[in-house]
């Protein structure tokens, strides 16, 4: 009757329903496709440059930047930013890294940038959407609620299991992205410096605080943010699973929400209050990479707050409804 026993039950059910297997399969099919696409674009880029001598090209870039630094009319903070850029490019040269042809860690970084707002949330939805509703539609909820376990405990065991598998999913995304892409691109580049520390002030990108981070550290931060997004999307899906009995309906609701979020973000909306929607706040890695947010007034702390509030509210609703609701039919 302990929580551990209940979590064990839920874990066995997720595994027996082959939910996690499906997710691993989706990753194992999609990552090679993206790897190949990346590989083609590297080839194209090299063809356009005529030769594939990226070293000469990079050397030229460094010289250009240094020339600009020599002129004294530059503002101080801009000068700092350029210096760090030069350091980064110099690192590529010294360590023989072609920035156009990424290694496994660079691929994994690009993959999370792309996956965080739609692909990753979608596979979390697959994991969470029938966690509760399947028990209702299959009638097995009667087995769970007629045992000497309080309802809040039953729901908590399901939520804990969801958190467990969400974390595993994010971890497996990183592992599979690195492992599979490395076959083509090699496994180098973990220490490669990546620029971060951008800040947004008054709708402009501030480069004053920019610094270079070893790529492995950057990856940890990035996948940490990916994990956070996954937990919030998982929590909201969990609530939908409590409220909606049909898995198909739940899936429809979540997919519609995520896709409209992607569209709203693209529209660089002038509708400012859209920034309070959770679906517009999923692209957390953009704050690390220094891309301007889709709507004015958004920042990393802002997005984290919005997501936390949505997640917490979903949990409250899920518990309140699950504990009070009569089980009929």
């Amino acid at each position, binding site marked *: *009757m*302990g929580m551990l*026993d*209940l979590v*064990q*039950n839920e874990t*066995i*059910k997720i595994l*027996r*329903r082959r939910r996690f297997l499906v997710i691993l399969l989706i990753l194992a099919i999609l990552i090679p496709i993206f790897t190949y696409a990346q590989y083609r674009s590297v080839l194209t880029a090299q063809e356009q440059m005529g030769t594939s001598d990226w070293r000469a090209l990079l050397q030229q870039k460094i010289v250009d930047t240094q020339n600009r630094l020599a002129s004294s009319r530059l503002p101080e903070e801009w000068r700092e930013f350029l210096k760090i850029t030069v350091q980064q490019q110099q690192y590529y040269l010294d360590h023989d890294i072609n920035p156009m042809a990424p290694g496994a860690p660079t691929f994994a970084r690009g993959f999370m940038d792309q996956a965080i707002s739609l692909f990753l949330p979608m596979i979390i939805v697959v994991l969470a959407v029938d966690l509760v509703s399947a028990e209702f539609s*299959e*009638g*097995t909820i*009667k*087995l*769970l*609620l*007629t*045992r*000497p*376990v*309080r309802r809040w405990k039953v729901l908590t065991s399901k939520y804990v299991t969801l958190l467990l598998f969400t974390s595993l999913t994010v971890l497996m995304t990183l592992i599979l992205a690195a492992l599979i892409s490395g076959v083509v691109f090699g496994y180098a580049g973990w220490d490669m410096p990546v620029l971060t520390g951008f800040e947004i002030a008054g709708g402009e990108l501030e480069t004053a605080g920019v610094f270079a981070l070893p790529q492995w550290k950057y990856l940890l931060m990035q996948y940490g943010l990916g994990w956070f997004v996954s937990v919030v999307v998982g929590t909201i899906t969990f609530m939908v699973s409590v409220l909606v009995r049909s898995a198909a309906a739940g899936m429809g609701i979540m997919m519609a929400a995520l896709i409209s979020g992607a569209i709203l973000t693209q529209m660089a909306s002038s509708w400012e209050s859209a920034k309070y929607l959770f679906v517009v706040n999923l692209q957390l890695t953009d704050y690390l990479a220094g891309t301007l947010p889709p709507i004015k007034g958004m920042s990393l702390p802002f997005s984290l707050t919005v997501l936390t509030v949505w997640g917490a509210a979903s949990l409250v609703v899920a518990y309140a409804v699950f504990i*009070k609701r*009569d*089980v*009929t039919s």
Partner: protein
Amino acid sequence: MTETVLSIKGLRKQMGGKPIIKDISFDVYAGEVFGFLGPNGAGKTTTIRMLVGLASADAGEIHIGGISLHKHFPQAIAQVGCIVENPELYKFMTGRENLEHFARMSGGISRERIEEIVRFVDLQRAIDDKVKTYSLGMRQRLGIAQALLHNPKLLILDEPTNGLDPAGIRELRQFIRRLAEEEGLAVFISSHLLSEIEMMCDRVAIIGKGKVISVGLVKDLMEQFGDQVEWSVSPETTEAASRILRALPFVEEAVASKEGRIMCKMDTERIAEANRTLVLQGIAVLGIAAKTVTLEDLFLALTTEEGGAEHGHAGPGAK
């Protein structure tokens, strides 16, 4: 004094704005099979849902083994095993995995106990197959195994014979009698068939439109409303025939309903004996029809009786 395992007082529930359960009270004792009899839509399943914690009551009290279900849900429900409507199981898991899942929710159940219960319901051969390959009868047995796994004091079954063939029903009946008589369980069974309750139960509560109409011994009920036999005789001998029938020790009542027709309250197994007596006394018997009382007849009789008063005595099941 027999132990009261289940006690219900003044249970009420509204659903969709309509009162569905209006006032239900009765007690169930250890070692008895208690029938919960009522037509479809009477509120049997709704009542059972409240008994097992699936739905909350608007008013009234439920005590299981003396513990309030509302106040101490885990302790109270730990003493209950149930199948509400169909035995719902995880079809994508094996029978054994289902029992293990259930054991982990109940706590303190050993591997040996699982083996024991599997033997008890005779599922040894199929226990490691996925439940989706089971027949309905096998699912029913796994459902019962699941309901009995934690040695409950009270077993609640909602229309358990639904979907079973006659052989399955006979088997279930023997099984339930054995549980009550040998293991001392209180078994609570709902049904809409009087014949089923008559065969399985010691006592019965009759429910209609969310109200208990009558609680008492099945034996008393059947004596009061039991089998009737309709005799057809030649009209001019109606009086004489009634007198002869009434004189027989096993005939409780003999009423001439119209010319040539006599309604008898009597055991149908003694029709031949009564017939012989009539024939020997020179009555020409034209026809004999045994009428088994149905739930509808019973309802009619009980509800037209003033206020639908209790019949018999509602005391502990005397055996």
